């Protein structure tokens, strides 16, 4: 007995599903294009905090303690750098406000 002809059909309503990157922050997932993980909290990319008398973007920068004497000061560095690195043109020196 000859085999029946096969009819190929496309599934209805098919659409391409693209894998999106998602990272975890604590026990939550977040989209790195919209948020970042700061101190175990999911925050928007534009979030800022004070670092002494400066403001820094928590998703891209970090507030490093710099010195106690003669003045208490901080330095804002790009995230990922070691706080021990010498000052670079991208860094900002900030004074304590306490």
């Amino acid at each position, binding site marked *: 007995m000859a085999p029946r002809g096969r009819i190929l059909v496309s599934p209805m309503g098919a659409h391409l599903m693209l894998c999106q990157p998602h990272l975890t922050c604590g026990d939550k997932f977040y989209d790195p294009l919209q948020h970042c993980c700061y101190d175990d909290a999911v925050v928007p990319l534009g979030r800022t905090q004070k670092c002494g008398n400066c403001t820094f973007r928590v998703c891209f920068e970090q507030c*490093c303690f710099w*010195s106690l004497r003669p003045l208490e000061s901080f330095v804002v560095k790009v995230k990922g750098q070691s706080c021990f690195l010498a000052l670079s043109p991208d860094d900002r020196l900030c004074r304590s406000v306490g």
Partner: protein
Amino acid sequence: MRPLRLLRTAALLLALAPPREASRHCGLLEYWNPDNQCCGSCLQRFGPPPSPDLEFSENCGLNDFGDHVTPPFKECPPGQCNPDSAELCSPCGGGATAPTPAGRRGGTRLRCREKPVPTKELCRPSVLSSQEPSSPATSSLPGTSERNVPQQALPSFALPLVLVLLLTSTVMLLLALRRHCRRRGQGKAGLHTYPASACGDPNTQGLTSLESSSPGSLEASEAGHSWKEVSLLPLLGREFPSLASQPLSRLLDELEVLEELIVLLDPEPGPGGAIACGTTRHLAARYGLPAAWSTFAYSLRPSRSPLRALIEMVVAREPSASLGQLGTHLAQLGRADALRVLSKLG
């Protein structure tokens, strides 16, 4: 007498009221995490005090809004020291250890998730003394980063070694640029030398050597004058007019073209990579994104392409962005090669 009594009561209340700087929710060795609404451990966030004469300051210098108000560490009180890197100092040479302050002013608050304590960083003596800002390694704090790289004191041969490496990198970069531009075009350019920063610095004087290029010609750009934006912009308008009408989001669907652009525009590693000709980093700047975003995007490699992240970001922020705009930016960066790839969508 009544006003005097009222005055006395007010003074008493003020004296009893907690200082404004202290957290209303957490103990002295904790800080308030306003996003997670919990008290985090100073030790788990900043690691132990990096020096035997430091202890944690109140709430590690953070206010209840999450701002860094004062440094997380302070000097030990006179007569006390901290050789064991405890949270607080204790009388030097032994003696009774001061009890860890407990209790919260605002009642019982939820503790944040436990995290491993970061490794102790070596304290640099200069952190407590007068220090020029340009001097290296004065911080005693890992900061808010969870990745800390401990640094030792630099050996005496480090500086000459760094200088030699820098010199070698510069020479290699010059050779690579020369090879790159010669490969792109011969004859017309007549280039023999050009400054290493010619591609990345719009203010460079090196452009004065590029007199043999004829504006409006793609061959001229291939001859190595690709950073002359005037030679590519008229070309863009004349030969790729259809790009202007197409949305930028189309590029995300055209995976082959996108992949080719990624190969051309993303690469940076290697000596002098950051000042290479018009990379995704420069493109991001053209689209108004800060340098810190580019640094962040490049840190996602290799799992995520910075160019793809850039296109997605621009499309999300400005759905009306067009391929024509991208072409204009590429022309301004002098990336004729990327323009040729983009023209496949025209």
